[in-house]
């Protein structure tokens, strides 16, 4: 038996988009590193920056889930 708050579902929904986005970013990073291993250090910074920016929506979702609880 489970009792809870609908706001948590909102967090789940808001995590879908960033999940796909972050997956694409790291897929591109791994591809790039596999093709050209010496570019790794350059790509790493870009990948992590993209990851941090794509994550924003999921973070809003998490915070709002607790705000509306």
């Amino acid at each position, binding site marked *: *038996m*489970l*009792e*809870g*708050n609908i706001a948590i579902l909102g967090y789940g929904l808001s995590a879908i988009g960033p999940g796909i986005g972050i997956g694409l970013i790291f897929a591109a990073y791994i591809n790039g590193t596999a093709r050209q291993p010496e570019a790794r*250090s350059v790509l790493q*910074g870009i990948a*992590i*920056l993209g*990851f*941090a920016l794509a*994550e*924003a929506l999921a*973070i*809003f979702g*998490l*915070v709002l889930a*607790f705000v509306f*609880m």
Partner: protein
Amino acid sequence: MSTRVLAAGGGEFQPPGTNSVIYPPFVAGITKPMVLLVLSIIIIGVFFWLALRKPSLVPGKTQFAAESTYDFVRNTIGRDMISGKDLRPYLPLLVTVFTFVLVNNVYGFVPFLQLPTMSNPGIPYGIALVVWLVYNAAGMSRHGAFGYLKHQTSPPGVPVGIKPLVIPLEFLSNILVRPLTLSLRLFANMFAGHLVLLVFIMGGEYLLLHGGVLGMVAGPVALVLSIVLMFFELLIQFLQAYIFTMLTANYIGGALEEEH
């Protein structure tokens, strides 16, 4: 918290929630995060003072640690984001932000402290406010107040017809939402990490004590996994300090760069 999960063994399991990062004051309104915050300033100050008190050409262990922290921020974060001579004046800020956020995050891993200070939203808001003031002031002193707003809100090469749409959106994302996402990113990551650990530890304990036969098996597994997760959290804690500093540098660099 209204969320309750009924477990098989009877009795109620109270899952950890927002309450688990709010601590009652010890004396006169002084809480655990406040003490940790002051402690972090002392740790960083004493560390750098000890390391660089008598700098030598061939560095000792502490001096090497301090110098590689500085090098790390300068070479892997600063140089990518802020171009050329502009980096020098902002390097102290970047090193300060990096060490401050890192020490406060790693508290989550230190036994007996076990609380990342940044899991309390007030503290990231404060740092993000400082960063917001710095990058806006930097941009305004470089381009002038109006020129800076134009620089941040209307990217070059946008057709005139779309400008009424682009300018409010860019203003929203570059000026208003940036400090919010910057602080919430740090807060939410630390808070979620702290909560996941609490769920594993408290849930494991509950299963072990009240979970019946199945709980006797699942409880210890959860407790062992909580130790694994703690090391994973250590990675996240470092990564968040890195990301926070990188975004700070990125915002400052973006505000300073010339029009193309």
